[in-house]
Structure formats: C-alpha cells, structure tokens
C-alpha cells in the first residue's frame, strides 16, 4: 500500500509537471527571455562590449547537455514530482479522507488551492516573482525568508481552516501574516533595466501558471490517491 500511495503521488506530479512546460512557454518563459535581453544589454540602450560580455550568462548553454527546452522539461518533471510528494505527504499525515469519485477530486482541488496559497501567493505578497535583471537582495536572505513564509503559511492555513477552536483560527491568521510584518529582504536600489510592463506581466503570469499547476496536481492527486485500495499488499 505504501508503494502504491507513493506511485499515485508520483504519477500525479509527473503529469502536472509535464503540463507545466507548455504553460510556461506560453506565459512566463517569453517574458524571461525578453527580460534577459535587457539584463544583458542587448535591448534598450547600448552597453559597451566589455560590459555586455561581463553580464553573467545563465541558461544560455545547457548544463545537462539537452538544451534549454529539455532542461526545463526535466526540471518541471522533478519539481512536479517533488511538490506532488509533499502535497501527498500533507494529505496522508493530516488523514484527509478521499472517498472515491467526484469527492476525491474536489478535495484534491482544495488541497491544491491551499498549496498554491502557501507556496505561490503568500510569498509573492512580499517577495514578488522576479524576472532576470531585477534588483535583488541577498539570495540567501530571500531563500530563508521564502522557506519560512511557505512553512508559516502552511501551518497558519492548517490552524485557520482545519481546526475548530477559534483561538487556533486567530493564531493561524497571525502566523500567516507574521512573515510579512517582519518584512522580506528588499534590495537597496530598486532601479532596473527591465521595463515595468514586463515585470508586472510576469508576476501575473507566474501566479496564473502556478495556479493551473497546483489545481491540476491537486485534482489528479485526489483522484489517484482515492484509487489506492485500503488493504493493498504493496
């Protein structure tokens, strides 16, 4: 049974991860590439050759040898599998019941929406999704703040939604808001070569594509987990 639960989660993650690549190529990656052109000084005002050469290049050449597109396909599959296993872990450890049929899909969708809130929406409120060429605060600080915020949002949402006690509901709200009151790392200089239009379009595109991902993942996960028989041997 354990193996079948893990395989069910993996299957949901790989399908949702596979669907994410075309979604990104429609909405987010064209904006990333446009922003990179500004970052490297190829668009907008001209830099001298030395400065353009010194601009750091990333993802121009594939490190895994498959090319940028296939690197992204692979990364999305791994991300899909990882997020699916973590979401399945939450469902299994919380003991969410998944009765077969429509109800399992509905509960899966709710789980996916909750995960989208914790992993995408909540951190983006103080640390907006950023294209290359943005002004950045220290990477380690941002990663720490991001992880703390995702974890706090998950714990807070659980207190708020899953617990009947009103004290815990209020506490949950406080836990969700706390990282934002504390404040996210903000760069000292907010000026950027990247046009504001690209940046704002990108933030919306990132939230929309990840909402698509998490709802698809949640629905599939609910359905697949509900199909694992209680007494399965493996």
């Amino acid at each position: 049974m354990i193996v079948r639960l893990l395989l069910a989660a993996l299957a949901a993650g790989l399908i949702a991860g596979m669907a994410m690549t075309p979604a990104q190529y429609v909405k987010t990656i064209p904006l990333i590439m446009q922003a990179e052109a500004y970052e490297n000084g190829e668009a907008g005002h001209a830099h001298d050759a030395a400065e353009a050469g010194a601009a750091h290049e990333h993802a121009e050449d594939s490190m895994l040898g498959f090319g940028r597109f296939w690197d992204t396909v692979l990364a999305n599959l791994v991300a899909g599998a990882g997020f699916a296993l973590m979401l399945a872990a939450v469902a299994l450890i919380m003991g969410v019941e998944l009765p077969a049929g429509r109800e399992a899909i509905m509960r899966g969708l709710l789980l996916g929406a909750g995960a989208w809130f914790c992993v995408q929406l909540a951190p983006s409120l103080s640390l907006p999704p950023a294209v290359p060429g943005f002004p950045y605060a220290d990477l380690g600080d941002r990663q720490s703040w991001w992880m703390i915020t995702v974890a706090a949002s998950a714990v807070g949402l659980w207190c708020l939604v899953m617990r009947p006690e009103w004290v815990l509901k209020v506490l949950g709200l406080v836990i969700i808001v706390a990282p934002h009151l504390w404040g996210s790392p903000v760069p000292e200089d907010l000026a950027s070569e990247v046009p504001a239009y690209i940046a704002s379009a990108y933030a919306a595109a990132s939230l929309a594509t990840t909402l698509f991902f998490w709802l698809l993942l949640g629905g599939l996960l609910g359905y697949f987990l509900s199909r694992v028989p209680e007494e399965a041997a493996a």
Partner: protein
Amino acid sequence: MSANTQTLSLTDRIGARTVAGLMALVVGSILVFGVGLANSQTLHDAAHDTRHSYGFPCH
C-alpha cells in the same frame, strides 16, 4: 492481531498512510530543494526557467 505480537513494526503502530506520508515528505523535500533552492551552478542553470516561473528566489 498486532496487539499480541511482541515487536510492532512502524507501519503497525502509526499506519501505512502515515508511513507513506513521511516517506513522501522526505523524498519530496529533497526534490523541491534540488530544483528550487540548491546553491549549485549546474542545478541553477538547468532549472533556471523553472525556478523563475515558480517564483523561487533566484540569482
């Protein structure tokens, strides 16, 4: 049944679903960390577009 046996496996004590959940949590965390947060130039370059698209802090 299990109440009479001397040694109980972890699965007997906390249930197969919880064991599967804990295993999924460990493996899933490693995968997400590798794709989204690991400070390796190779991983960063390969997962670059994915990291940005998911809003992971990057650069």
